[in-house]
């Protein structure tokens, strides 16, 4: 135990140094933050839409000069955060249930929720391991009941693409047969990861994830309920107009055409004015 | 037994001892390398080059350090039993060891409650029960009081003579070394300074090497044992004079005892032939001749050291300068050395 030398300038400097550095960091951060002339638009995006969202945001910034900040997460987690006050201007969900739940809980108005894209299912297969030369979508039993190979889908309990996959498999007995060998990823991206890493030979994934590949099988969309992806405008009152402007951009014909190229279908009703 | 050891810069020596030397004492000033030597002999020094011939094939070496290092998760008895479990055949009987180390009342005690001396006694017993051929003790009795220590040394000595093991013990106490060793090894700066049978080594040591209180080891025939007498003293015959001695080491009928210079007084013999003085409590009287007077410390301590000889027994006396001049003592003079029964 040494006594503090309370005399001498050097002691004061040393004692004050650490808090000073700490404060300096905080002030600098604050200063840098306020240096932007424009506050960025804060958008929460479901994981499967993250790539398109980034592209569209870049286009928007180019066009209007407004910076866009994107936070990617799972729809459920983002919903939970927004419900408890997370400050996002827009919430782009992978389904419609979550934005609707926000209406029910009073967080957003009914007219602040819009569908913005429609997802498509695809089936990817490692042909060397999984026998699939003729696939009869009406008779999936033949394929999935005969094989003991693992199948990956997104978890139907939490992911809309999983729900769709389940609906497809429920033609006939395929769903029951596949139970034993089914692997559930917590979202459609993880289902794709399982396939890509070689751990499963066949997986139901989002078409947008495999749009560049040509060894995929498109799943006929009439076999499942449409995967309608909706957004909710969650911006505070004074920022709503900026959020709405982005929504208009997202729903514009040009952008919607891009979405087709990215593996989505356009929404049935075209959005607001173009 | 002979060995040669080389350990880094600490120790570099060889020594050999006759097969009759059952108890070998090791001494030297602090830092001379005694502990390193023992450690190397025990095989605990990985970097040491040790060349040893114990005189026994496949010798089991047991070692006891100054710190008992008893296993704290076991009580005393369990420590002993564990050691005995890994002993080879032909070790000393459990009960005898317990009695010899005087730990009968400690058996059920948890190890952490033992005092320093108690712990050391248990540690020695534990090593003995392991049935060693060679027992190395590194100041392993330092915390035990003198009377008990001597009794334990006696026990060890008797066991060694009985053939159970040979013992190498390190000690700082000259009395212990002189009384209980058959042979001595004196180390200085890691080197073999003196080595041989105890009496020879002690005689070869100069007065300075004997420490601050020079002593002599006297050896004689026991004419009456303590049990036989009415008083609890041995009667030992030195130069045909019966001397009464308390602390001594007795083997067969030969007794050894240590006589410190500070315990010896000088008196001038009177005309009366009998020197035994029944008027004084100082029991022992021995005629001797002053061989040398050493006054090197006279100015500092006011004392001189006399070297005395009785028959072929040599010993010392330390007296004041004042007494020297009062009695007019001179070299070659015949005097009577007096000392109590120690």
């Amino acid at each position: 135990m040494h006594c503090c030398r309370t005399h001498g300038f050097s002691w004061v400097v040393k004692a004050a140094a650490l808090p000073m550095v700490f404060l300096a960091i905080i002030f600098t951060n604050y200063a840098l933050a306020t240096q932007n002339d424009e506050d960025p638009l804060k958008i929460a995006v479901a994981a499967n839409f993250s790539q398109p969202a980034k592209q569209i945001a870049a286009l928007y910034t180019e066009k209007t000069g407004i910076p866009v900040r994107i936070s990617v997460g799972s729809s459920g987690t983002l919903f939970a955060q927004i419900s408890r006050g997370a400050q996002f201007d827009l919430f782009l969900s992978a389904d419609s249930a979550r934005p609707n739940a926000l209406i029910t809980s009073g967080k957003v108005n009914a007219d602040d929720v819009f569908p913005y894209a429609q997802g498509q299912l695809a089936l990817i297969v490692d042909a060397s391991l999984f026998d699939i030369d003729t696939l009869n979508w009406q008779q999936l039993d033949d394929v999935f009941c005969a094989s003991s190979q693992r199948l990956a889908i997104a978890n139907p309990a939490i992911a809309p693409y999983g729900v769709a996959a389940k609906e497809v498999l429920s033609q006939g007995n395929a769903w029951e047969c596949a139970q034993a060998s089914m692997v559930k990823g917590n979202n459609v991206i993880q289902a794709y990861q399982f396939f890509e890493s070689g751990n499963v030979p066949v997986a139901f994934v989002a078409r947008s994830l495999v749009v560049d590949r040509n060894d995929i099988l498109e799943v006929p969309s009439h076999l499942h309920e449409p995967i309608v992806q909706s957004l909710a405008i969650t911006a505070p009152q004074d920022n709503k107009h900026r959020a709405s402007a982005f929504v208009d951009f997202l729903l514009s014909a040009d952008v919607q055409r891009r979405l087709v190229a990215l593996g989505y279908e356009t929404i049935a009703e075209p959005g607001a004015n173009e | 037994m002979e060995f040669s050891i080389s350990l880094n810069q600490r120790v570099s020596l060889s020594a050999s001892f006759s097969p009759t030397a059952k108890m070998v004492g090791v001494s030297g000033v602090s830092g001379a390398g005694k502990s390193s030597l023992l450690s190397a002999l025990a095989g605990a020094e990985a970097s040491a080059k040790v060349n040893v011939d114990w005189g026994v094939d496949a010798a089991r070496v047991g070692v006891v350090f100054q710190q008992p290092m008893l296993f704290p998760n076991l009580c005393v008895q369990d420590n002993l039993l564990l050691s005995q479990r890994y002993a080879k055949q032909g070790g000393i009987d459990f009960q005898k060891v317990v009695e010899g180390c005087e730990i009968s009342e400690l058996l059920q005690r948890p190890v952490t409650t033992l005092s320093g001396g108690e712990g050391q006694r248990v540690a020695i017993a534990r090593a003995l029960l392991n049935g060693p051929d060679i027992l190395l003790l590194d100041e392993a009795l330092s915390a035990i009081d003198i009377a008990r220590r001597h009794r334990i040394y006696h026990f060890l000595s008797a066991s060694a003579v009985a053939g159970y093991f040979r013992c190498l013990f390190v000690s700082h106490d000259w009395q212990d070394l002189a009384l209980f060793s058959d042979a001595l090894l004196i180390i200085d700066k890691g080197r073999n300074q003196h080595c041989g049978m105890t009496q020879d080594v002690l005689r070869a040591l100069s007065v300075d090497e004997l420490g601050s209180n020079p002593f002599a080891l006297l050896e004689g025939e026991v004419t009456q044992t303590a049990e036989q007498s009415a008083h609890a003293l041995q009667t030992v015959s030195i130069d045909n004079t019966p001397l009464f001695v308390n602390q001594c080491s007795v083997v067969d009928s030969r007794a050894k005892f240590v006589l410190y210079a500070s315990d010896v007084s000088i008196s001038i013999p009177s005309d009366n032939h009998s020197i035994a003085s029944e008027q004084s409590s100082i029991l022992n009287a021995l005629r001797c001749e002053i061989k040398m007077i050493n006054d090197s410390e006279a100015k500092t301590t006011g004392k001189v050291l006399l070297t005395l000889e009785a028959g072929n027994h040599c010993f010392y006396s330390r007296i004041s300068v004042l007494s020297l001049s009062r009695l007019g003592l001179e070299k070659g003079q015949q005097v009577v050395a007096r000392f109590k029964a120690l």
Partner: protein
Amino acid sequence: MPLDYLPAIWLTVKLALVTSVLLLIIATPLAWWLARWQSGFKPIVQGIIALPLVLPPTVLGFYLLIAFSPDSPLGAFWLNTFGSTLAFSFEGLVLGSLLYSMPFAVQPLYGGFSQLDNRYLTVAKSLHLTPFAIATKLVIPLCKSSFVVAFGLSFAHTLGEFGVVLMIGGNIPQETQVVSIALYEQVESLNYSGAHTLSLVLLAFSLLLMVVLYWFNGKGGLGWNSQSR
């Protein structure tokens, strides 16, 4: 409805138990060797062992996913030997958990072994105790609290494992759906009451475990090693 979660709870406990026992077996010799090893490379080895402490679990899970794949040596070996994939299996989870909780077993054991006075071992060797006897009669009793802490911490840590299981589990009920994954599913599917139930169970169990661990450690603790007798 709480009974619906029993399979997940049992699976989680089973995973934690198997992992902790295996870790004791693996970590003990490792920690022993490490405690006695003197080398300039020691910090490197210690750093590697401690990696799961600082790596995001998803990183670990990600690399495990790749390693378990039949395309890579480990996954291929497993598939050929046992006929099923290493990913999405309980065994795969155990393997992942072993790596994930390894530092929690090694650190306490390393600490205990380092503190063990070397002289006890010297004396034990001089008494001709076999290495097995030294381990069972001396090291384990003297380092008992380290073993308990190592087991307890690995168990508790594996109970709460999420990131790794998320990557390689596949969410198969009774096989790889542990409580943390079930909990995640409840939250994601907006079933908050179910989430509360599971959370409380996990929280209560973990708290109980940690309290018992600290109680035991305080009681048994460092009594022996600090004084050499």
